[in-house]
């Protein structure tokens, strides 16, 4: 029986394909060649979205030019939340199957997600001052996003807080899973409470409430931010795998020499 047939047989089992692609060596072989292309496309889309929003998109009839902040704020917010959902997903994979690639993904998603959350908070604050007259209000949406930022920081700290890295990964995975409860709170905060923050302008069920001349640059910037996030996380994961392999080879060489 050929190796391909054997692999296909193994892959047909439930969840086996996850383990097949979660192998660090295989991940490196699949992802490394795609990284330069992914980086180029994500950079092009991000630049196009930001320039379109900053220069060419029309000013809002009510908010004027301040609405241009939306083209960085909204994509950053979506990526921050999706990044945390991804973090919770890989944490679940780590807790259930104890796969090292899931731990590695969680470790690399944390700082990138925290960065996007920071951008979301700062840009939102800079929009709030001219529109609301305050940089910050303890509104349900703002507060829950601030909690998301602290969850990211807690995850980053917890993963590095133990002498035994396995303990750090386990504790951080549990924090990520428990913290996932914050995601629906962020999404529905504008419906559950009377918030100063405006309601959802774009939703999967309700469509978009903004005109296409503003929607298109927003979608391009969002696609660029999502691709940038994925490219950054994958590049950091590849770097981490290579660092571990280097360490293993050096230790093996030292043991041989001893």
């Amino acid at each position: 029986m050929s190796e391909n047939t054997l692999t296909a047989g193994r892959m047909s089992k439930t969840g086996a394909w996850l383990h097949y692609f979660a192998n660090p060596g295989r991940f490196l072989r699949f992802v490394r060649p795609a990284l330069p292309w992914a980086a180029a496309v994500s950079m092009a889309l991000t630049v196009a979205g930001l320039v379109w929003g900053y220069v060419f998109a029309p000013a809002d009839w009510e908010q004027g030019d301040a609405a241009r902040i939306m083209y960085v704020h909204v994509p950053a917010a979506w990526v921050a939340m999706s990044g945390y959902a991804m973090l919770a997903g890989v944490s679940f994979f780590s807790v259930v199957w104890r796969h090292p690639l899931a731990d590695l993904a969680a470790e690399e998603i944390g700082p990138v997600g925290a960065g996007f959350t920071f951008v979301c908070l700062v840009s939102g604050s800079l929009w709030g001052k001219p529109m609301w007259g305050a940089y910050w209000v303890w509104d349900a949406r703002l507060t829950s996003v601030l909690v998301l930022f602290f969850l990211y920081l807690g995850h980053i700290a917890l993963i590095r807080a133990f002498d035994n890295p396995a303990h750090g990964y386990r504790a951080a995975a549990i924090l990520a899973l428990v913290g996932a409860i914050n995601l629906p709170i962020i999404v529905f905060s504008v419906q559950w409470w009377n918030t100063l923050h405006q309601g959802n302008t774009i939703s999967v069920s309700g469509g978009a409430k903004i005109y296409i001349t503003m929607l298109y640059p927003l979608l391009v910037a969002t696609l660029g931010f999502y691709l940038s996030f994925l490219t950054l996380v994958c590049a950091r994961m590849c770097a981490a795998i290579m660092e571990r392999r280097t360490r293993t080879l050096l230790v093996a060489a030292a043991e041989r020499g001893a």
Partner: protein
Amino acid sequence: MKYAGFIDGSYGVTVVFLLGIGWLTFARYRRAAKRLRAVETR
């Protein structure tokens, strides 16, 4: 442009973050690849 300071600040923070994390990631990736190549060919 009205509110130029706030708009420029938002875009500035975003661009600095994206360039910063992009550069740090690229530098780490290149260093890791270079070190692995050196160890493998030793």
